[in-house]
């Protein structure tokens, strides 16, 4: 396995020795839609901690609140109660402008579909968050990520010229290049065939193992969740179980 000593912003991180840190911490989250009898409560005093530099899967049946949890953790939606801390930033109470900035600088996204801006090339899509924040771009790191993801030849293609798997790789590269505190992946394999889905899961693993990233993946695919280090199970707006996966070297099962 490749080992990289990387400069992580102003911090130097050794991924194998830094596993005890907490990347995202949620406490007593409450979220309610609607009022009265029609009220739906996707989150009922839910608390959880996501360890840094680990691959965490969030699973649960439809209506268990996993999508809402992700919206709240990623600063896309505000909870009605409780608090969310990403890295060292408390999201609760931030206004839209500051939340946007947190998303841009500390959070990466990989969605099921509509991952890329169709009118931009792969490279422009990858650099989009830093351009939006007018931040300088680490060219060397971009090249490193592109090479690792096999995108070097494809950087100047537009999304419609790429296969579904390649598009997802561009999305992964975009999430990696801005060096966020945490990457959220929303059903990243949902729209892909099995081979491409497996490839994306490999890339998410690599993001954790080789680039020391923290990845949170929402999925209802047990097979996908099996690639994670930990799996958090939700039901009815509450955390019901946490499974630690067996050590990576026993994967894939024979």
């Amino acid at each position, binding site marked *: 396995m490749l080992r990289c000593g990387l400069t992580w912003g102003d911090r130097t991180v050794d991924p194998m020795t830094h596993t005890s840190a907490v990347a995202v911490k949620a406490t007593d989250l409450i979220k309610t839609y609607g009022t009265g009898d029609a009220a*739906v409560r996707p989150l009922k005093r839910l608390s959880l901690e996501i360890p840094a530099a680990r691959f965490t899967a969030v699973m649960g049946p*439809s*209506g268990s609140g996993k*999508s809402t949890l*992700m*919206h709240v953790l*990623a600063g*896309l*939606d505000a909870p009605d109660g409780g608090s969310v801390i990403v890295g060292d930033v408390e999201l609760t109470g931030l206004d*839209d*402008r500051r939340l*946007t*900035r947190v*998303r*841009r*600088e500390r959070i*990466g*996204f990989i*969605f*099921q*579909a*509509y*991952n*890329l*801006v*169709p*009118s*931009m090339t792969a490279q*422009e899509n990858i650099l*989009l*968050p830093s*351009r*939006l*924040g007018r931040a300088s771009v680490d060219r060397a790191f971009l090249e490193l990520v592109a090479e690792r993801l096999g995108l070097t030849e494809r950087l100047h293609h537009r999304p419609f010229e790429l296969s579904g798997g390649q598009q997802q790789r561009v999305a992964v590269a*975009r999430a990696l290049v801005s060096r966020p505190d945490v990457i959220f992946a*929303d059903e990243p394999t949902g*729209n892909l065939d099995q081979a491409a889905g497996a490839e994306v899961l490999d890339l998410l693993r690599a993001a954790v193992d080789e680039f020391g990233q923290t990845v949170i993946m929402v999925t209802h695919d047990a097979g996908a969740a099996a690639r994670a280090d930990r799996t958090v199970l939700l039901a009815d707006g509450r955390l019901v179980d946490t499974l630690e996966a067996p050590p990576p070297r026993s994967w894939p099962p024979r």
Partner: protein
Amino acid sequence: MNPVLRANLRSGGTRLFAAGAAIAVAVAFVVTSLLMVDAFSRTMESQAEAEAAGADLMVEVSGLVDDPQTPAALADQIQDLDDVGDAQLIRSAFAPAEIGGRDGFLGVSELPEHLPVEFTEGRAAEAADEITVTEQFADAYGLTVGDAVTPEDPATGDAGDPYTVVGLISGIQRAGSAFVSPAGMDAFPEEAFPESIRVVLAESLHGDAGAQRIVQEQIQDLIEQHAPEASVLTHEEIVEAWLEDLAGTSDILVTIGLGFGAIAVFVAGLVITNTFGVLVASRMSTLALLRAVGATARQLKQATLAEGALLGVVGSAVGVLLGFGAAYGLGTAARGLWLEDFAPVRLTVVAVVVGLVLGTVVTGAASLFPALRAGRTSPMQALRPADVAPAEGGVPRVRTTIGVVLGVLGLGAVVAAALLHSPLLGVAGAMLGFLGVLLAARAIVPAVVRGLGLLLARITGGEVPRLVAQNARQTPGRLTTTTSALLIGVTLVVTMTVGAATAQRSLDEEQADRYPVDAAVASADVGAAVDAEDAVTGSATVPGEPAEETTEDGAQAPAQVVAASAETVAEIARRDDLLPEPGQALLSASFYEGEQPVAQWGETATVTLKAAGEEPLQVQGEMAGWLPPGTVVVSSAAGWDLQEAEGQTWMRFSDTATVDEVMQVSGTLTDVAGAETPATVEAALSRASISGVIDTVLLVVLILLAASVVVAVIGVSNTLALSVFERRREAALLRALGLSRGGVRRLVSTEAVLMAVVALLIGGGLGVFFGWAGVSSLVAEDVMGVALAVPWGRLGLIAAAALAAASSPPALRLALWGGPSPRRASPRSSPPLLRLRCLRVPFQV
């Protein structure tokens, strides 16, 4: 550059192009108007300068018309002043004339001796039977040097002494179109009016402003003593006064040009708002993604605004160039065809600045509302990629309230404008009211479409109209936007059509009042000849009897008594109440002329009719200007024994007869009945020339409106593109659930037809109202009643065009840009399985 802006610009494509075209057309219109008015003003200025040239002072003596001796005497006295070299009295006169073999109207003046003129041929008129004309005049009548011009005495109709053309003057002249010598002016059959005295100072003082002022004071003294109605101006003051006159004309032209420009810009603004609405809607998922990965709401807002501003700048720049090109072309055409001295069109700073600022500001302002919507995009939308769009909100109360208030105010102002005869108030009110209707449409249109859909579902029992009705509740915004685009076009065109028809009808009624019969000739033998003419649709012989008019002093003149029957009136006349009651008669205008008129011009006269062997009959006579001279009309009910052979022939012309056709019939009448037989085609001529003028005005107005209609069509195309974009997923779901391909197609076309019907109902109603109000506000106060005329045939054509535009955008879009057809895109490009993969249940509860 803002990365969001860059992405937006790349994904805008043909829709941005369409919006740019809309603003370019509107700006081009405004710029063309400004440049043409500028060139026109410069043309007139240079003419004013040219004609004032040569004269140091001008004494205005047209106020002395009743006292023909004084101007001549004043000219002599001025001539005797020390510093004056020459003082020439300029007179002018007008009369009908035969010009180069054609009937026309001749206005002549004395040619100022010191006016620098350029002869393209020949020389100035010197002898009493010589005349010099301008080239324009010569062209109009096909005159060349050596041709004859014969004026008539307007009172008697006798031909005067002919003039021979001896020279042609280049260019048009302010002073007139034909010039004679003072001796020639004395020979003119109509009395000449004094116009002005042109004063030229003695050699060394010519052109000296100081000397001009001194002589001006001396002339002022003379005027005070002898002719207080006169006034004296120096060279400078003349040019200034002319330019002031001219400014009034320019102001009117500017007002007309900018009025239509304002309509075009207003329509373009609405179209651009729609276009950006389409763009923002089609980019919703991309905007949500941008929000999720870190774009602020402000960045999205600014990107959309910047896109609008950029589009405005580019569109306006193209519009300025287009406008300059159009004005240049028009100017060149004017020089070639009409005004040889028309000043070359120059691109003025004012036109460029007005064009650029107007286009950019309007586009920027029009993109404001869509920009706010872009900023409100929720990043969460990126996380539910293919959900069926949630239902749009209910009726927006604020928007509807503002719309109703603006609508009531604006339409109220239009009614006030119609009653007070104030066109400007009308235009402002119409724009405001229409804006109000567009805002309130969000509350009205979906409800009406839904009602119509449910009604249709009940009648046909089909499922498709029911789906249309449900869609109307699901996506009222989209429905309203598309309908609005149609509404704009329909309202514009219906307004113009109804306005023209109403104006035509009002004038027709006024004409029918004055001229109930188109033409009449005092001969019973012309029936076959005139019936052979295409322009004549009917003729009738009115029995009559030759008579003599005896005035109180015993003088006798030939006359004719005819008896009109109710059948004749029904067949020929344009007004039913023409027939005189027993004891009444109609008298031709000739009885009111001459030494002893029967009564004051136009008033009721008492005349006595004496037939051989009958008791004298006293009747009340009304004047009827359309009768041949010497005619008395009584009703056939009076029971007089009159002979067909001694009667008159009355004619009715076709409504589309032209002036030339009427003149041709007039020629036939002269040939068949003889030149001495009294005849009149005045009514037909008046009708033909008025309908010619209305047709021309309508044509000009439609050309002026064309810019706005083009812009509105672009808007329809854009909003249909929006509807197709939003439809893809919805159509896929319906297909997946079992609706046939034909069913989806019927769904789209049923909705399109219902939208067109609503646009036609609202736009048609508004157009009829605006058309009537427009004519009412334009006519001078109480000159005539304005009767609304609705041309159903033409409105039917407009309805067909609107339905076609709404339901067959492929043809329209292909004709405009050749892009993919919106209607076909939805049913064909949606194989159910492929689309289903990205369809998820809206809420995972």
